[in-house]
Every structure is written in structure tokens, then in C-alpha cells.
């Protein structure tokens, strides 16, 4: 069997390694236009901050791919012919396959006001990183539009490089999709304390400049002169390249698949951020890794019905760590912890816990998820919260 994987991100590489673990014979080829070796996208910010070199971003030493006989091919895929089981690459080469996995991940969502100007960047790909590094020395002020996790990472990098940064957040409170207004306030205060000009309920109305950006006009009518604009209004499945191919798979928001990661095309699978599995997209590192391992089993012939497990996530807003599990929106009990920039929020319905949102200290999401799956009573959980704490030794935060 020749398995061809388009995309060498965490879903694609995890799938490649998982297939090899169970099938010593299969020929495995991974195609990527972005870079030759799998790298940790989540560490882009540390590369931008000069804390890591490019090689440090690679989760596996390079010899692993040679030892596991996984062929890495650099190139952009331009065409897909499901009848001929064949891909075409931009350099003119055709690659035939027996099984194909589409794992092209996410791309930065484009804003309506976005124009192709030098100085306007996303922060998702290696090419974005290169652009950011090139632009930073000539940048006195930058504007980052979009208050999600990538936005705050980009802001942290710019602050690290001593670039004056304006951070525009569309919502009236910070990240209401996941944080309560009180938590949002804590995060905003923390980000502002780093010297960031954070403006809530403000968006970019238009960009100024020809050729190179030299400012933005906000929806509040303010003009901000800047040499760099970061567009971080979220990510979306990277499917545009599939629209014009000979035999496109069925596309929804992402590549539509069933619970076994099968697309509408025969022998073609999709997993990771690009896949819309039973109508659901999970744009998370852990989910992509989980899906990569699962799709490997599907490719090897196992019948399966993938279902996303109980949701959990974590993030870091500058120095403020955050862990959540289950639901993050809804009624619950919020408590700011004494003497520290930290809080706990336990969501509940009818006396049963439905979610956790923990800011400023460390938690073991596994314990939280277990409580959720056991449908524990809120009273019970409130009394034993310390069992889920995961702070450093001697550093346990008082609840």
C-alpha cells in the first residue's frame, strides 16, 4: 500500500508514525509545501522571540523519519484525481496513491478589510514567522487585530521585541467564548500591565498605505500609525486549494468526513484541523494528534466511529496560565483566589458540574474531566478541588 499524506503537521505526522507502527510494509509519503520537516506550530512564538532556533521546533529528530521509512516530499499539491488515484504537484510531478490522507490543517482567517500590503501578517505558518522576523526591526508600532490565542501570542512576541503594540479586540469583554467577564477583566489587566495598548470593542475598519501598510483606522474612528498589522481573527480549515481540483471532495466548512474519517471520495481520508468529522471541527493541537492516531487505524481498515471526547484546553496569556474542561459558558461559581492573580470557576447545572475554567494556577485537566464524566455534584467537587491542583512543589495555590 502506498499511503500519501498531504500536510506534515501534527495530524499528518502522527498518522504516518501510527501507520508505520502497525504496518511495516506500507510505503508512506508525506507531502508539504510549508516546510520539509514536521515542526511544532505552537512554538512559532518562541522562535519569533529568539528563544528557539528553527531546528528546536522539530518534535522529532530528523533521523526518525529515515528510520521509520517515511518519505518526506517538499511541494504544493495542485490537483487531485480520485479516479486515477493521483496527485499533481506544482513542480509538475505526479504522485499516485492507494490511500490518501488530507491533513492540511488550518489557515489564518482573512478579514474583510484585509488587503495585500507589505506589513500585514498572519501568525500561523513558517512563512508568516519569516515575514514577522523580517518586518520587526523596521517596526516602531504594530497593531494586532483579534483577541484570540494566536493574537495574544503575537502581541507577546512584539512586546518582547520592544515594539509598541496596540491590541484590538472586537468583543466588549476579553474572549467571551471561553472566559467569564471577571476572568476577561483579569486577563485584560494582566495584558495591559505588560505595556500593551489593549482596546476592547474595537476592530479595524480599514488599512492605510499603498504598497506598505502605514496605519489603521479603527471602528471607533481612531487612526493608529503603524508599520505592521497582525491579523489574528481565528483560523479556518485550509480547504481553498481543494476547490479547483479535478475531483474535489465534499466540502462544508472543512473537508466533510464520516466518523471513520472517510471523505466523499474513495480511499481518501481527512483528519486534523481540516476535517469536519460528523459536522464537527476540532481546531486544537491535542485533537489533531488524537485524530491522527485514530485515522491511522481507519486507513488500516478498522471500522470506527470517532467522537470527540470531553473538551479541555489550556492557554497562556503572557504569564497567566489557564486550564478549562467541559463547558466554559453558563451559570457557575466564580471565586478569585486570595493573594494572587488567580481564580477558579466551576460551572453547574441542577447541582451537577458541567465545566471548569481555572485562571492563574495549574490544574490537572484529567481529574477535572473525570469529575465531569462522572457527573459529580458541585458540592462534592468544591470540597475536593485541591485534588486537581497541579502547581509546582511548594507552590500549591491556596484555594
Amino acid at each position, binding site marked *: 500500500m502506498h499511503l500519501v499524506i498531504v500536510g506534515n503537521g*501534527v495530524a499528518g505526522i502522527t498518522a504516518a508514525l501510527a501507520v508505520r507502527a502497525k504496518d511495516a510494509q506500507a510505503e508512506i509519503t508525506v507531502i508539504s509545501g510549508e516546510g520539509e520537516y514536521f515542526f*511544532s506550530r*505552537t*512554538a512559532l512564538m*518562541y522562535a519569533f522571540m*529568539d*528563544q*528557539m532556533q528553527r531546528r*528546536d*521546533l*522539530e*518534535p522529532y*529528530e530528523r533521523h526518525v523519519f529515515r528510520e521509520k521509512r517515511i518519505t518526506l516530499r517538499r511541494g504544493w499539491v495542485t490537483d487531485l484525481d480520485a479516479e486515477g488515484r493521483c496527485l499533481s504537484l506544482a513542480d509538475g510531478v505526479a504522485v499516485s496513491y492507494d490511500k490518501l490522507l488530507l491533513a492540511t490543517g488550518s489557515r489564518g482567517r482573512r478579514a474583510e478589510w484585509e488587503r495585500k500590503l507589505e506589513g500585514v501578517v498572519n501568525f500561523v505558518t513558517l512563512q508568516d514567522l519569516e515575514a514577522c522576523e523580517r518586518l520587526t526591526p523596521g517596526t516602531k508600532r504594530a497593531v494586532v487585530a483579534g483577541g484570540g490565542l494566536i493574537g495574544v501570542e503575537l502581541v507577546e512576541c512584539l512586546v518582547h521585541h*520592544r515594539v509598541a503594540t496596540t491590541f484590538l479586540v472586537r468583543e466588549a469583554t476579553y474572549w467571551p467564548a471561553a472566559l467569564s467577564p471577571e476572568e476577561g477583566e483579569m486577563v485584560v489587566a494582566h495584558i495591559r500591565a505588560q505595556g500593551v495598548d489593549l482596546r476592547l470593542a474595537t476592530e479595524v475598519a480599514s488599512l492605510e498605505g499603498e504598497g506598505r501598510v502605514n496605519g489603521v483606522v479603527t471602528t471607533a474612528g481612531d487612526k493608529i500609525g503603524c508599520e505592521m498589522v497582525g491579523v489574528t481573527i481565528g483560523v479556518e480549515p485550509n480547504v481553498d486549494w481543494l476547490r479547483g481540483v479535478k475531483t474535489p471532495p465534499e466540502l462544508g466548512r472543512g473537508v466533510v468526513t464520516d466518523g471513520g474519517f472517510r471523505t466523499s471520495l474513495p480511499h481518501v481520508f481527512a483528519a486534523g484541523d481540516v476535517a469536519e468529522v460528523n459536522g464537527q471541527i476540532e481546531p486544537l*493541537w*491535542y485533537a489533531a*494528534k*488524537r485524530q491522527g492516531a485514530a485515522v491511522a487505524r481507519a486507513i488500516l481498515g478498522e471500522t470506527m466511529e470517532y467522537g470527540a*471526547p*470531553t473538551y*479541555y484546553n*489550556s492557554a*497562556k496569556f503572557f*504569564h497567566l*496560565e489557564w*486550564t478549562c474542561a467541559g463547558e466554559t459558558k453558563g451559570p457557575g461559581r466564580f471565586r478569585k483566589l486570595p493573594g494572587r492573580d488567580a481564580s477558579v470557576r466551576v460551572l453547574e447545572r441542577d447541582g451537577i458540574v458541567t465545566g471548569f475554567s481555572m485562571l492563574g494556577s*495549574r*490544574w*490537572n*485537566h*484529567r*481529574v477535572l*474531566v*473525570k469529575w465531569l*464524566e462522572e457527573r459529580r455534584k458541585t458540592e462534592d467537587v468544591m470540597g475536593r478541588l485541591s485534588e486537581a491542583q*497541579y502547581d*509546582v*512543589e*511548594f*507552590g500549591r495555590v491556596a484555594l
Partner: protein
Amino acid sequence: MIRDRLYHDMTNRGVTGWLMAALLTAFYVVLYFTEALTPWAQRVGLSSKWDLYGVLYTVAIVGGGLAVMRKYGHNRYQVIRTSVVMFVQVVFAFSIPQMLKAMHQPELYLSYFWPLKFDYGNPEYLAQQPMWFIVYSIAGGLVLVPLAGAFFGKRWYCSWVCGCGGLANTFGEPWRHLSDKSTAAWKFEKVSVYSVLGISLALTGILVYSWTTGSKAPVVVEFQSWYGLIVGSVLSGVVGVGLYPLGGTRVWCRFFCPMAALLGITQRAGKRFHIRVKEDMCISCGLCSKYCEMGIDVRAYAQMNESFTRASCVGCGVCSEVCPRGVLRLESESGLVQITVGR
């Protein structure tokens, strides 16, 4: 800014990094093999170059320690650990030996043990010391140190008490990320560090034998002086500290220190100290590996959900500190406790 660029250059093997390495190496060569520092010591009222070295060493640990405490001020493990490192240096590795000397007593370092301080396991040397020290040294080196290593991991010594580790974790902090993370370096480490331990044990055995029989062959004297020169001076000083800006701060500890090797064995055998990995939360960013001063590829374990104990781990706790997802936790427990739930 120029300051940022200079710092980056100095801490990432730039021109200034190489210069710093040359400077540190030159300092150790001058210190160990010449008397050039003696007049400088006398000028500031100290009796020998070694006293001057003691002062500089203590200043480096206290100054670097304060900077580290500022940097990791939010992390109580780091604050407590660094305070202990500074305290041990100031009191046990500097003040007490100086006071003993002032009282015309032998200059004894209570924070060092055999086989790191090789003489403290050499019967010929020990026999000339006060009885309390003989008991302290033998009980400490042969019983207390390994036992505590089995219970709490080698960290209690290597990153809380030891002066070499103390200098690495304070003055050396800006260079900690330069350690080699490759599998090849790990292979070299296993050969080199256990070789030094083997040689050290063999020499100690020979010295004990010579002492009990009351005859010391000239070849033993030569062996001993070579060991002192190569291990005691070149590897721990010139190479160990001189290479800070090129190979990271734990070159000596990782590749050569016989005590670290011994403690590493007890750490593994004790099965209590481990780094716990929170399941399915690692994002493979690699900061843990990058900042591991012992060159352990922590990420390789974290991304596989594997809690682990590595012989070389000195338990400095920085992997846990830098992890942006709070995945890693240092623990001393009985056996590997893993919470496997969910799914």
C-alpha cells in the same frame, strides 16, 4: 535594542559568547596552573588565590541567584531552591571554612562529599582530620547522600546543595539552554560519566588498600596526581565552567562528575523521584527540552504521555517552569503514580 542584541549574542554562541568562554577558560588556567592571582589576593587582604576564588565564586552565586529569583519569582520551588543554594554557598562553602582557617583548624567544606571531593574518601587525608569530620564525611558520602538520592532524587544535592550545580543554576542561568539535546550526546554521556565514576572508585579502592597495608606504590601516587589534574582541575574547572557559554552550564555535571553518576544510579533505583507528565496536554513546543541544562529531550517523553526518571536529571525544575501548558511536574513519591482516566 543594542543591549538585547548583545545579550542574545552572548547567550547564543555569538562572538561575545566565544569571547566569554575564552575569558572563563583563561581565568581557570591562570588560577590552577599559575600564581598570577596570588598578588591580587594579597592586595585585597586575602591570604591565597584560593581565598580570592572563594570570594568570587560566592559573589557569582549570590549575584546570579538574586537574578534567578527575580526571573522565577512567581515559582516557589525556584525561589526556595535558589535561596538554599545561596545559603549553602555563603555559610557552608565559604564562611565556615574561612572561620575554621582563622581558628587554625583544617579548612573543611561540609557541603562537599566524596567522590566529588575526592580527598574526603581518601583514608590518608581523612586520618589527619578531626574525628567528628571523619564520621561526618564517611556517613555523609556513603550513607546520607545516596539514601537521600534514592528518596528525593539527586536534586537534593545536585541542584540544592552542590557548589558546582549552584554556580550553574545562578551565574550560569543565561547559558542553560546550550546543552546538547541529541541522542549522540546522551550516548557519550553514558560512557563518559560512568567511566569517570569507575576510575574514581578504582582509585579510592587502591588508596584504601595502600593505606591499610601501609605501603603506597609510586604508580599509585602518579595515578592520584593525574586524577587530580584531569578530573579535579581540567574537567571540573577549566572545561566545566569555561564551556558555559558554548556547551551550557552542566558539562561537568553531566559528562564527568562521579558523584552525579552515583546519585543518578540511586535516583533510578529509588523509583521515587520522577517527572510526571500530564496526559494529552503537551503541545510539543519543546521549551522543556530547550531549557534542560542536562540535555534531556524532555519533549520526547511529554509528547508520548510518559512520566519518567532519567539518571542525569538534577531536578532543577525549569522544564516545569517554562512549560506553557503546565504539563510537567517534579514529584518524589513511591513508584510512578499515573492518573489514567477519561476516554
